[in-house]
């Protein structure tokens, strides 16, 4: 550093420092920050001092630091200050977005809690043996049927995950085949329960069941007549099993037979849609915008049969698959199936949360 620049700094320092204390000078400096290199260096020193909450330095302190820091390039400091401002701005924006998201979640939570209370009330009524149709509003029985299903299905999923975990523990613990088979049969019965509760809600409102709203969003991508395609699930599971040749052969045949059964039901479904559309379009007009709906209503009753038939195929396929396997293989198959279904549900949650990640 040459003497002329030192002199320059010193003279500036004397102009500004003498009448005031360091902190108010920082306040005054803010407006002049770009005009004087010495002042910028002093502001930087002030910032550091404030952060460390050290008020004990004297008027000489900054001047000492000034001498040391006069050798720092000015634009580096300018850049750092600009970066700080930018970082602060981004931080404020992130905080704002986060708070907005919290607000939205809070409202959603309130809404869900209200719904839950209503549903609990309805189910309490149903379980209390009150005839749901006496609830006094149109479609009360349907409403109660759906509410009951949603609760039972959620409990079913919870229990299924527990049973999958039990199977996993049992398989890894070297449990003997008889005991393992007992657990396998228990898991099979649990699937039978699912088809029973689905049949009940099919009779209450088949349109609700077929819409798949009761499933998570990713599961819904695979929807076929109110559930999964059994052949697709088999295709996912079979590669995860260690099979003997004749078992592979049998399972391959099962997948084929299952696909043929699914195709026939799919075509039955198309025929039903066609005849339903015809019944709606050709229903005799009754005046006032009404039309004869009896045929269309009959078709909807048929839809109930179709969905229950699809569930029958699902159930039979599952049973037939396990019949071809040893207890250990069956346990592994059920574990893989349970884990796969839960992964689909977890993916749905992650997918739903993807827009909530911080910027």
């Amino acid at each position: 550093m040459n003497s002329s620049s030192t002199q320059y700094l010193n003279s500036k320092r004397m102009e500004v420092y003498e009448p005031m204390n360091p902190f108010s000078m920082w306040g005054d400096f803010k407006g002049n920050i770009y005009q004087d290199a010495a002042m910028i260096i002093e502001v930087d020193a002030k910032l550091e001092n404030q952060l460390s909450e050290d008020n004990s330095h004297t008027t000489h302190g900054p001047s000492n630091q000034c001498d040391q820091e006069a050798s720092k390039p000015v634009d580096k400091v300018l850049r750092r200050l600009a970066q700080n401002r930018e970082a602060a701005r981004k931080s404020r924006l992130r905080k704002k977005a986060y708070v907005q998201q919290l607000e939205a979640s809070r409202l959603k939570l309130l809404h869900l809690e209200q719904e839950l209370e209503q549903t609990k009330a309805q189910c309490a009524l149903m379980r209390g043996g009150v005839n749901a149709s006496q609830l006094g509003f149109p479609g009360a029985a349907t409403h109660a049927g759906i509410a009951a299903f949603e609760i039972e299905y959620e409990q079913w999923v919870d229990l299924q995950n527990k049973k999958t975990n039990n199977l996993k523990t049992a398989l890894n613990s070297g449990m003997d085949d008889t005991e393992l088979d007992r657990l396998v049969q228990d898991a099979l019965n649990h699937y039978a329960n699912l088809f029973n509760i689905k049949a009940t809600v099919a009779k209450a409102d088949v349109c609700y069941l077929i819409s798949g709203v009761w499933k998570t969003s990713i599961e819904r991508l695979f929807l076929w007549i109110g559930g999964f395609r059994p052949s697709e699930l088999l295709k996912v599971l079979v590669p995860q099993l260690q099979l003997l040749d004749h078992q592979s052969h049998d399972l391959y045949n099962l997948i084929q037979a299952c696909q043929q059964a699914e195709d026939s039901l799919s075509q039955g479904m198309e025929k039903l849609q066609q005849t339903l559309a015809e019944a709606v379009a050709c229903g005799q007009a009754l005046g006032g915008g009404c039309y004869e709906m009896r045929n269309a209503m009959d078709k909807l009753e048929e839809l109930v049969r179709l969905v229950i038939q699809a569930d029958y195929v699902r159930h039979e396929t599952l049973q037939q698959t396990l019949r071809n396997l040893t207890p250990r293989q069956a346990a592994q198959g059920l574990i893989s199936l349970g884990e796969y279904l839960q992964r689909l549900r977890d993916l749905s949650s992650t997918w739903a949360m993807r827009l909530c990640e911080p910027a």
Partner: protein
Amino acid sequence: MDKIETLTSENAIVVFSKSTCCLCYAVTILFKELGVEPLIHELDHDPEGWEIEKALVNQGCNSPPVPAVFIGGKLVGSTNEVMSLHLRGALIPLIRPYQSLA
């Protein structure tokens, strides 16, 4: 019942059906996919349809009576039984004698 007897003894595979029934349609599609042509007897197009339906119910086909499937003169059952047989691999052996070579 005579009519059932006649139809099922003269035809390899008989499906008693109703033209509006989508499950009856599904069953016939399955047979066609397996290479057989069942005789489809639509009860709603038969003046004696009611009689046949009653007889089928008496034979055990109820809720609902159609589709009612006969193979080789013997009652196999409804959609459930057909699907179940097929998934076990037992349907194709039953119909093999009647599969067309095409």
